[in-house]
């Protein structure tokens, strides 16, 4: 039940804050903030409880299931393991911060804004928790529509174009995924006689290799669009740039992560052999993203666009690591998801704060801001260093682990990916140079970080440092999960396809619904 609450809390927060906005705007903001903090508290409590008492049987900490439409084998099935837990913590953390960051920025239709923001969070929480593919597709859609409004209503100048592009890209990917889900559902039904959308049943679906490849591609396209990887990344710079600050933070920090999560949770376990076959191509896409994204980032004149392209580059590491098929890279990928969420989220918040002060995103119109705003400069420096992978900060751990892992899988790709680190240094330092150093042409004073901004930045700095210095907090939590994937080495990949997977849920009330 506790898992259901995690989804319901932001959902009710969304409705309440919308209703409250008719009375008072401040109340609406507070409700949104408090509900997300409640969610964060709940998740943290679960985390702490679990760290003290490591679950003995399997790595599924919680499992909750209710039949919904038994005729089609659809049930409400939520389950949580270390990966979900970590991602949920990130979700509520960044969610609460994005309410704070829009405290002053959003003045137009504030109630509806918070409704949408919290509904995106609801969708994301649902995506990280649900173990029924039907429900997963539903939450995938739930994330999409409020995000469309966030960009389309509160965005910058070209918002409608960006919102439409975002919608079309992700929806097209989502529909392909729906096709693949239905295909998997029917193939499972035809081969085993059990029609079900349940993740744990579909895990060991017997199917032909060619079929598995097509279905795998269906899933992969949806996730790769969201991630985004190279040929499908064009929606990202537009959406990130035009979105309001909170929208950019949620997009970069959370929405992209659902793509990565989907790969880890669905593509690799559901189609181990097929994804193993596809691995070199996926890694190639990843490396292309790292290099090309980095290069594009370097040449952007617009600060938000620059940061957006760094996401393309950083998410390339995710693709590279996920398809390396070993534990080290896998852990690195999860670390990268968290660290990138924090660091890029922070950079977008800084870009938003700068925009609030100077009403421009053009790098050429900034410069020489350090004397005026030393505190903000320092904070920016920390996150820029994180973004370029400085040891001691979270991103370094992540990228280092991914590279170590992928070296075992593919030497050439890893070497190419390492070049990406150099590019990252170049574009990251460019941010500092163009914004904070150089000559200032401004005559007017700019306020440094205010109390609210300190409240936002301080936790982010603490977390990114913590991740860099003591990554074990995250790594220890997810440690159980990847054992299932690491069994697929090159040698036993064909055998792995037929292997018996024990449903890793200790709960005996695990009932399946047979379609007649």
């Amino acid at each position: 039940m506790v898992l259901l609450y995690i989804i319901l809390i932001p959902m009710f927060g969304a409705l309440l804050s919308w209703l409250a906005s008719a009375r008072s705007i401040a109340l609406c903001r507070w409700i949104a903030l408090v509900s997300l903090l409640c969610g964060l508290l709940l998740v943290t409590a679960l985390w702490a409880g679990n760290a003290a008492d490591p679950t003995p049987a399997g790595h599924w900490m919680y499992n909750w299931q209710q039949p919904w439409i038994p005729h089609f084998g659809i049930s409400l099935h939520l389950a949580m393991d270390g990966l979900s837990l970590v991602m949920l913590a990130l979700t509520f953390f960044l969610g609460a911060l994005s309410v704070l960051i829009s405290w002053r920025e959003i003045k137009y239709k504030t109630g509806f804004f918070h409704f949408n923001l919290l509904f995106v969070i609801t969708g994301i929480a649902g995506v990280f928790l649900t173990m029924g593919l039907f429900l997963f597709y539903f939450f995938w859609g739930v994330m999409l529509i409020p995000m469309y409004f966030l960009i389309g209503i509160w965005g910058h100048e070209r918002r409608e174009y960006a919102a439409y592009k975002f919608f079309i890209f992700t929806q097209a990917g989502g529909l392909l995924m729906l096709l693949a889900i239905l295909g998997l559902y029917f193939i499972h039904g035809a081969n085993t006689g059990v029609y079900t959308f349940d993740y744990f049943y579909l895990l060991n679906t017997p199917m032909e290799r060619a079929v598995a490849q097509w279905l795998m591609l269906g899933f992969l396209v949806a996730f790769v669009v969201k991630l985004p990887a190279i040929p499908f990344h064009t929606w990202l710079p537009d959406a990130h740039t035009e979105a309001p600050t909170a929208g950019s933070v949620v997009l970069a920090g959370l929405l992209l992560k659902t793509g990565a999560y989907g790969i880890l949770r669905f593509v690799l376990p559901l189609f181990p052999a097929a994804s193993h076959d596809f691995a070199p191509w996926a890694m190639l896409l990843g490396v292309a993203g790292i290099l090309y994204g980095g290069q594009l980032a370097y040449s952007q004149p617009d600060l938000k666009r620059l940061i957006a392209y760094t996401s393309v580059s950083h998410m390339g590491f995710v693709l590279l690591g996920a398809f390396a098929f070993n534990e080290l890279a896998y852990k690195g990928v999860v670390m990268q998801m968290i660290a990138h969420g924090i660091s890029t989220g922070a950079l977008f918040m800084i870009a938003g704060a700068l925009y609030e002060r100077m009403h421009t995103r053009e790098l050429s119109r900034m410069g020489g801001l350090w004397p005026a705003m030393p505190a903000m400069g320092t904070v920016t420096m920390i996150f820029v260093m994180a973004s370029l992978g400085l040891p001691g900060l979270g991103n370094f751990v992540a990228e280092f682990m991914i590279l170590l892992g992928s070296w075992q899988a593919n030497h050439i790709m890893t070497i190419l990916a390492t070049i990406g680190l150099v590019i990252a240094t170049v574009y990251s330092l460019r941010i500092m140079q163009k914004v904070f150093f150089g000559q200032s042409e401004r005559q007017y004073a700019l306020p440094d970080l205010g109390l609210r901004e300190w409240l936002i930045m301080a936790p982010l700095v603490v977390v990114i440092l913590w991740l860099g210095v003591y990554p074990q907090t995250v790594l220890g939590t997810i440690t159980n999960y990847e054992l299932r994937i690491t069994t697929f080495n090159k040698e036993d990949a064909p055998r792995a396809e037929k292997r018996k997977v024990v449903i890793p849920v200790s709960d005996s009330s695990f009932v399946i619904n047979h379609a007649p």
Partner: protein
Amino acid sequence: MTFEDLLSLGPLFNICGAAVLCMLLVAIWRNHRLIYYVTLVAFALALMSVVPVATLLPHTIAPLVVIDMFALFNSGAIVGSGLIIVLLSYNYFEEREERKEEYYLLLLLATAGALVLVISRHFMSFFLGLEMLSISLYGLIAYLRARQRSDEAGIKYLILAALSSAFLLFGMALVYGFTGHMDFPGIGAYLRQAGTFPLPVIAGFGLMLIGIGFKLGIVPFHMWAPDIYEGAPLPVAAFVATISKGGVLVVLIRFYQDIGGRNYTMLWWILAITSIASMFVGNLLALTQQNIKRMLAYSSIAHLGYLLVAFLSDTQSGLEAIAFYLTAYFPTSIGAFGVLIVMSSSVQDAETVEDYRGLFWRYPWVALVFTVMLLSLAGIPLTAGFIGKFYIVMAGVDGHHWFLLLMLVINSVIGLYYYIRVVAMMFRTTDTSQRIFIKPSLPLAGNITLGLIVMLLVGLGVYPTAMMQLIQQMMTLIK
């Protein structure tokens, strides 16, 4: 005629009786409100009288009609939809200048025709029901005479419907002439016995298919649909889109079943091609429409195509899928027209996409209702439309018609685009000072009705199990 016969025809008698009553009332005292209530009560009684019939099933009144589970379920759906349409009608006609009372009379008669159709198992009752339906519709479609496009729509429907009836009649004559039977099982028995398919019978079936295809509005007999939808009064358009098509579809199912249509591959192929063509033509033409009535017309062509996919699967789950889809589609479609009705002013109908620009910011409630209807039509999860579409896919898989399914999926994607376009338009922010929008009437009764429909649709989408169980019990055709 026994008591059971009377009881089993309860819904039909109620509606017909009300028609007579209305006729007398109009002669004695013209009063819109009175007639409205009489009609409303008649529909409510008819809906209630469906319940006791369930104890008598299956009941045959030889040779013309048969009341089985299947017929009863569809009678209920038709009467229920009729009730909703009546509820939405009052304000729409109250605001318009013409004499209103005969509308209810014609609506009752048309509904009676549809009720005859769903229980008919004989060419006589089939044709009788169809003509009752069509002739009432001639009047209904052209009802608001003073309107610009009303006459055009009425005349168009009159000519085309009369022509298609002629085709149907000639086809029936051919079939009768060579098989010697007018009852469906008799024709089926003859064909099985003969083993061959004489050419005139094939020709007869072909001609009948033209007649039926016209009423269903499937490609290539769909040309009338957009003009009629555009020209007819909105409640009538809702009627044409739902009850009129549903009734004919039920006869088609029964006829196909009774003559053993599954044994004739050619018949299957003709219908399959029609289905695919309907989906593509409907959806592709809907893409560019700026008029929502026309868009709904084309989308209903496509929806008939989806329904035919389930029909062609020729399985029990196909039948269930049709029943569920109709249960979802009737309220959705009526609800969509209902939104148009409440949004229309006494001066003009709110029919172009532009009329709905930024609606959410002006009338959030109506915009939300319309969004639910459109999402249900598009088949988005958590609405009845999604479950309906999923049911159809299940049926198609049961029948192993993968190609048809692929076409259906592709079309769902195309369909998504134009439904979402309207939804996006409603949420678009606008500078309201520069534009003059239609001043909607927003009647209370209409809004309550729409609220109920939304609850029904979301209820069916979130918890469809109860309805599925009911349908599984009800979908037994008499053999």
